[in-house]
């Protein structure tokens, strides 16, 4: 199935958002435009990555998707529901679950299984089904063995997986992860990304991953690069990373291998654009070496 045949889960058109600052009398005395006309269309089952530096508006965009913030201008439909309508909020939050940056500040209960059950409890799911959902969700993220543990005893990566389970237990169609790995060590980061990819591939859950780690976006179907409240680049990871210079201009780093390949190319090594993994680079270099040998002989 081609992605264009699929149903859109998120449709945003010309979104703007302004943060307002009020003076003591309650009048607006300052405003800051965090989003300046962002449009996006995410199909069911896609893995989308949103890249951007601090203050690029990516977190603001994420919060729109869960109706925690409502657009100041433009329209946003999540699972066909308008986020500006008050009555849709419950359904939208169930359809698009959200995982935040700090694992400690989003785990509500003091036992892992109870935290996973928090969302379904809020939705009014019957007790028996809550347990069913909690079991499935914790198994999906590989935290079932820890169901009776206190979150305080877990590592950062494990806590973040519990937070993801808490969202999955609500049976969302889409998960929005707002820099879920920013506070984790490399091991924890890999753990979380592996879990998210797994969910995307096996359960077909749409994933929107917001990050500023380039290594995490190479598996995405599509990458959006944001800067100063607007989408400045969009395409497959390979397309986006072939533009090393433009990325550097908006203070984003490219993956180390991509940068290495880019520098080699500058020195005259005939490499293609947008190399993403070490394997690709070694393969390309092997080809060149063989080519040289062939010519030499």
């Amino acid at each position, binding site marked *: 199935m081609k992605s264009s045949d699929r149903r859109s889960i998120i449709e945003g058109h010309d979104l703007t958002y302004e943060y307002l600052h009020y003076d003591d009398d309650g009048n607006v005395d300052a405003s800051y435009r965090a989003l300046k006309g962002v449009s996006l269309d995410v199909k069911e089952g896609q893995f989308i990555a949103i890249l951007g530096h601090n203050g690029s508006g990516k977190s603001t965009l994420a919060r729109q998707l869960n109706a925690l913030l409502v657009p100041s201008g433009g329209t946003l439909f999540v699972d066909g529901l308008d986020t500006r309508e008050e009555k849709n909020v419950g359904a939208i939050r169930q359809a698009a679950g*959200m995982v935040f940056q700090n694992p*400690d*500040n989003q785990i509500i*209960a*003091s036992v892992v299984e109870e935290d996973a059950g928090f*969302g379904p409890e809020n939705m009014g799911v019957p007790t028996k089904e809550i347990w069913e959902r909690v079991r499935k969700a914790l198994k999906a993220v590989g935290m079932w063995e820890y169901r009776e543990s206190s979150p305080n005893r877990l590592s950062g990566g494990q806590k973040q997986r519990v937070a993801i389970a808490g969202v999955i237990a609500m049976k969302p169609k889409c998960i929005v992860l707002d820099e879920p790995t920013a506070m984790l060590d490399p091991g924890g980061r890999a753990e979380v990304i592996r879990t998210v990819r797994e969910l995307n591939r096996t359960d077909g859950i749409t994933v929107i991953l917001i990050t500023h780690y380039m290594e995490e976006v190479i598996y995405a179907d599509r990458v959006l690069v944001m800067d100063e409240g607007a989408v400045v680049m969009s395409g497959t990871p390979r397309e986006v990373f072939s533009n090393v210079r433009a990325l550097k201009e908006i203070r984003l780093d490219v993956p180390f291998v991509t940068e290495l390949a880019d520098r080699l190319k500058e020195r005259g090594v005939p490499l293609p654009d947008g190399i993403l993994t070490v394997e690709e680079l070694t393969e390309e270099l092997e080809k060149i070496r063989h080519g040289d040998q062939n010519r030499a002989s």
Partner: protein
Amino acid sequence: MLKDMTIGQYYPGNSLIHRLDPRVKLLGTLVFIISLFTFSSISAYALATVAVLTVVAVSRVPLRYILKGLKPIFILMLITILFNLFMTPGTAVLQIWKLKMTEEGIRFAIHMAVRLTYLIIGSSILTFTTTPNSLTDGLESGLGWMNRLHVPVHEIAMMMSIALRFIPILMDETDKIMRAQEARGADFQSGGVFHRVKAMVPLLVPLFVSAFRRANDLALAMEARGYHGGAGRTKMKPLVYHRKDWIAFLVMAGYVAAQILLRIFVKI
């Protein structure tokens, strides 16, 4: 420093007392405390002693561990006893300078000491055998009727359980801030009590700032997961009374009846 406090902590176990419904334990503790203050004869205290020791034995929490919990209130108890000894008017037994120790005072002091000790022991058995979570669950459903008096029972219980969850996190954070300040020359170790307390003040500002930030994040995360107060919520672990809970209620009633009978028929 805080780790030595056994009072208010959970003692993991799987005894009958541990497995009782938290509402039963809450009511039991309440009944026990009320009985301490209404029945104050020697025979009543003897019965209370038997009751406490039986519950402790069944709960399999070591008695030594429970008595350790009395340490922090030792000074409070001493002050109460001294005040009662010397400030109660009556027939003097002993006179030191202007202070008179009275017969009534001695009796009163003994009463107070026994009551306080049993009060602490009784409530620590509750906290030793009940996880903070089931305690708040028990309070929430046990006090559900107060909703009709417009007391936000669910919200209070939710606040309590969140507070309990964040205690270790904030303790960790305090530790981190302390070390960061020590690295820059702050001194929390030397000097008298007053000096050390004063040195703690600069800890509070960063701690409060961070607590507010966490509260903000948590509120957002709860909202994102569809939290909208207690209405329309279901329970993952609903409280249901089992046979052992009904039996515990009967035992409780038996205890109260025995106390009343003692009061009527035994005059000491």
